[in-house]
């Protein structure tokens, strides 16, 4: 198996290594948009294609066309993130291969593979048979493997980025839900923007990060990212939610958490179905008391 991976950030090296083994890969190539990532990745891959540019669809189309002129791959792996899906989608359009997104597991069966993916907003798992060539977009989960040492060459791909693309990076705030052990999440049960201070305070005291459901980010603009299928997929030790109902599109981003704690005043809220600890009550009573206790030590 010749495998091409799309490396968005370094956390994916260990995850893809797991899939490299599961797929019984023999030749490993990576594609990245970042010089520094390319250097790190080259230590564990045979070949690294570096397209040194801000993400842009047209540029990636051209870069992939160029790569496919000389190289062929049996499998493409990408994160199930916005960019990962776009990368794998473009690859699929160029090569006609099949594609499965939201992948949470893989097993060999004879000459083909059995892939598990989340469907219906993460409420179900579909088991799908695929044979190469195919692309997979993977959901961050428990699978990891220590990457083997390889000595890859970095191959620069020179193609013009789409002339009209401009990139404004997210402000670095130190609040990173994707790499924290605990993520405190606010839903619409939080009534005013000022009350977000309690959520941020809890994240601060526990050394974690905070985030929100989509309505708080997209409609109220209280945050610029959210947890869920169309936002961030997280896998912390603890996900603790205040006033989150637990709709499938949101929970799909939180399912990989080790423990789920939910505070919601509605006993029928779906989030209780998937909580390790569910508190049925008013968050405005519970959250201040929790902060109080933690501050007293």
């Amino acid at each position, binding site marked *: 198996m010749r495998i091409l991976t799309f490396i968005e950030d370094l956390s994916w090296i260990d995850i893809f290594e797991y899939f490299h083994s599961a797929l019984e890969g023999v030749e490993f190539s990576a594609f990245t948009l970042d010089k520094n990532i390319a250097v790190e990745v080259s230590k564990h891959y045979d070949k690294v294609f570096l397209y040194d540019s801000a993400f842009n669809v047209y540029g990636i189309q051209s870069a992939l066309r160029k790569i496919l002129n000389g190289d062929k791959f049996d499998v493409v792996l990408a994160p199930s993130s916005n960019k990962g899906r776009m990368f794998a989608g473009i690859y699929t*359009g160029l090569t006609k291969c099949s594609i499965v997104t939201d992948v949470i597991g893989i097993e060999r069966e004879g000459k083909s593979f059995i892939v598990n993916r989340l469907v219906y907003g993460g409420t179900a798992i579909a088991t799908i048979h695929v044979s190469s060539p195919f692309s997979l977009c993977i959901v961050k989960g428990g699978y990891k493997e220590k990457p083997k040492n390889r000595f890859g060459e970095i191959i620069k791909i020179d193609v013009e980025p789409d002339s009209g693309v401009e990139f404004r990076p997210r402000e670095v705030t130190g609040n990173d839900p994707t790499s924290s052990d605990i993520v405190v999440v606010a839903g619409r049960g939080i009534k005013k923007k000022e009350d977000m201070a309690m959520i941020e305070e809890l994240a601060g005291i526990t050394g974690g990060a905070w985030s929100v459901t989509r309505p708080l980010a997209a409609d109220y603009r209280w945050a610029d990212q959210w947890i869920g299928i169309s936002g961030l997929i997280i896998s912390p030790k603890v996900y603790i939610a205040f006033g989150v109902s637990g709709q499938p599109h949101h929970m799909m981003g939180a399912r990989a958490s*080790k423990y789920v704690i939910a505070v919601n005043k509605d006993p029928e809220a779906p989030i209780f179905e998937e909580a390790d600890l569910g508190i049925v009550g008013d968050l405005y009573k519970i959250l201040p008391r929790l902060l109080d206790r933690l501050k007293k030590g």
Partner: protein
Amino acid sequence: MRVLVPIKLSYDINQMKYDERTGEPILDAVPRVMGDMDRCALEAALQLKESLGVVVEFISIGSRRTHNKLMMDAYAMGCDKGYLIEAEDTNTLDAYTVSSIIGKFVEKYGPYDIIIMGATSQDTHSSVVPPALSALLGYRAAFGVDKVTVEGDVFILEATYEDGIYRYRLTPPFIISVTTEANTPRIPKLKDILKARRMKYEVLPVNDLISKDEVRKINVTSIKKYVTPRRREIIEVDSEEDVDKAVYRIIELLKEAEIL
């Protein structure tokens, strides 16, 4: 200018039902609807119709039996012309096949200046048909767009990804996909709904566009309800003491998880 909006009939996943015993979905009991993002794609196109006078056409893949209401919904919103590519069991078509059907349609019935799609479908949420289609057609593109503005003949398209905001300046032809942040879809008035019922859409057999061997299905062997193994300890808080008890349990769990 001609704008094409491909739309999909999706299962309403907020109303999913599963067989208690087998864990299998009971899809016949789940309503099928136009996805929210597809509605936003139509709205984005209709706003261009109002501001620039574009012609808005739409296409779906399915059967008359299942898709008639979807087609009427798109007409009721104000679209000019609809096409239904006739095929059965469309929810098992693989993403490449869907893109190639739309791609062939564009080649045969186009040219279209702009193609607008929903960023992701309600039920399979793969988000890969728009990028695959862009690669097939070799179009410039922007996906997951949550803001569309027009400046002269340049379209400014803003999309937010994990690492920040991307702003594209594109001139047609191009393809975009939009999120629910892009706009608020109009709700058709009763008279538009009644008018839509008299509108006809063109029905084209799928094999006019791609041959039988090119129709690839996803090889699904099973679908089962996903139950995350959780402890489901529930504490009901009625009194002040209950608040303390709840807080105590949260702290205990945080200790168990080695957060504290």
